[in-house]
């Protein structure tokens, strides 16, 4: 899988420090990529964590995070003195859902609706196979 492009249009009210703001968004998207594809705590029936190391609990590395294009819409907040809003989390909030939709679109399998993350290759294989088996001939 390759992430071909990633565009963020972001509204945190009045932009005060553009460089720090872009950094916040980059970090948020990187976390979002982790949520979307990798991060998953596996616990067995006795409550024992099965992937308690970074060899098995996967986080995205630099090669997994795409270049990110950013634009801002400034809608000043009415209730804060500078018209600012928070900017820390927006980068990671939509990421899982939008990658689920992008993967659905890329696979183009009728009846395949991705309603969960992370989208691990193994899980996608199962879901895709399930959708194909249920598809009417």
């Amino acid at each position, binding site marked *: 899988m390759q992430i071909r492009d990633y565009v963020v249009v972001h509204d945190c009210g009045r932009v005060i420090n553009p460089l720090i703001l872009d950094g916040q968004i980059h970090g948020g998207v990187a976390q979002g990529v982790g949520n979307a594809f*990798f991060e998953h705590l*596996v616990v067995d029936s006795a409550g024992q964590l*099965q*992937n308690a190391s970074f060899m*098995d609990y*996967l986080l*995205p*590395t630099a*090669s*997994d995070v795409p270049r990110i294009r950013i634009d801002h819409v400034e809608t000043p907040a009415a209730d804060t003195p500078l018209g600012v809003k928070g900017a820390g989390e927006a980068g990671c909030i939509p990421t899982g859902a939008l990658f689920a939709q992008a993967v659905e679109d890329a696979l183009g399998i009728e009846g395949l609706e991705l309603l969960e993350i992370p989208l*691990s*290759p*193994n899980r996608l*294989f*199962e879901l895709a196979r399930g959708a194909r088996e249920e598809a009417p001939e």
Partner: protein
Amino acid sequence: MKPPVFEYHAPGSTDEALALLGEHAWEAKILAGGQSLVPAMNFRLASPAILIDINGVDELSGIETAADGSLRIGAMTRQNVVESSDQVRAAAPLLHKAMPWIAHPQIRARGTLGGSIAHADPAAELPAVMLALGAEFHARGPSGERAIPADEFFFGLLMTALAPDEMLTAISIPAQAPRSGTAFVEFARRHGDYALAGVAVTLTLGSDGTCESAALGLLSVSEAPMLAVQAASALVGTAVELSDAEGAAELAAGEIDPTGDLHASADYRRHLVRVLVRRAVVEARAGIEDRG
């Protein structure tokens, strides 16, 4: 985490290393690049009483090209040296292609060719590549040197034909035959992770343009690195068209004995082998220069 207490030896020659190994055999482990052994010790999955560090044995490193074009590579040759070697690129393109898939550059700067082979991790790239190359391993022990063909070397999970008092000293790789093509493909969650499955292929065409010999080394799909023997022999005699590649892929998927883990079920590994063998065979065939 820190490893349990161990005794450390740093011999300066192969003879000295072998003497230590002869004395301590079952209790001792040879420390090559340490990229698998040291983490295993730190996690306390391995607790050798004695470490014999052969990093100071210079005679175990180096790449030589023989008159017939074949390579002899010292067991302690660092993986990044193999990766950037023009001799390796010329004589064994498959090995050259596979090197960047091994872990990360930092690990290849320390990890050695022989260390990875002797460790015999079924998920590692080098054992499967050695099988596809028809390599031969040189081992030394108390009764002298012997050569072990790659397909008689890997027995099971981390198990090899090496006796406890023997050490791997060098690897011989035949020069790639004319009218041959190779490919290495693998699939991992992230680049540098252990692959969920992988395939190394060598194909050689005869003068009539059909496949004269084929070898397919598979990783991460069995207890040990393995050759897909049925898939390879099914390719022999064919023109290696897409349908032949598909047939070989189907056979390979039936030959493996995968287990499931956190990242891939046995079923999914079988599916991956089907896809990867097809791709690798097609790529290897496309890479053959038709000089005929």
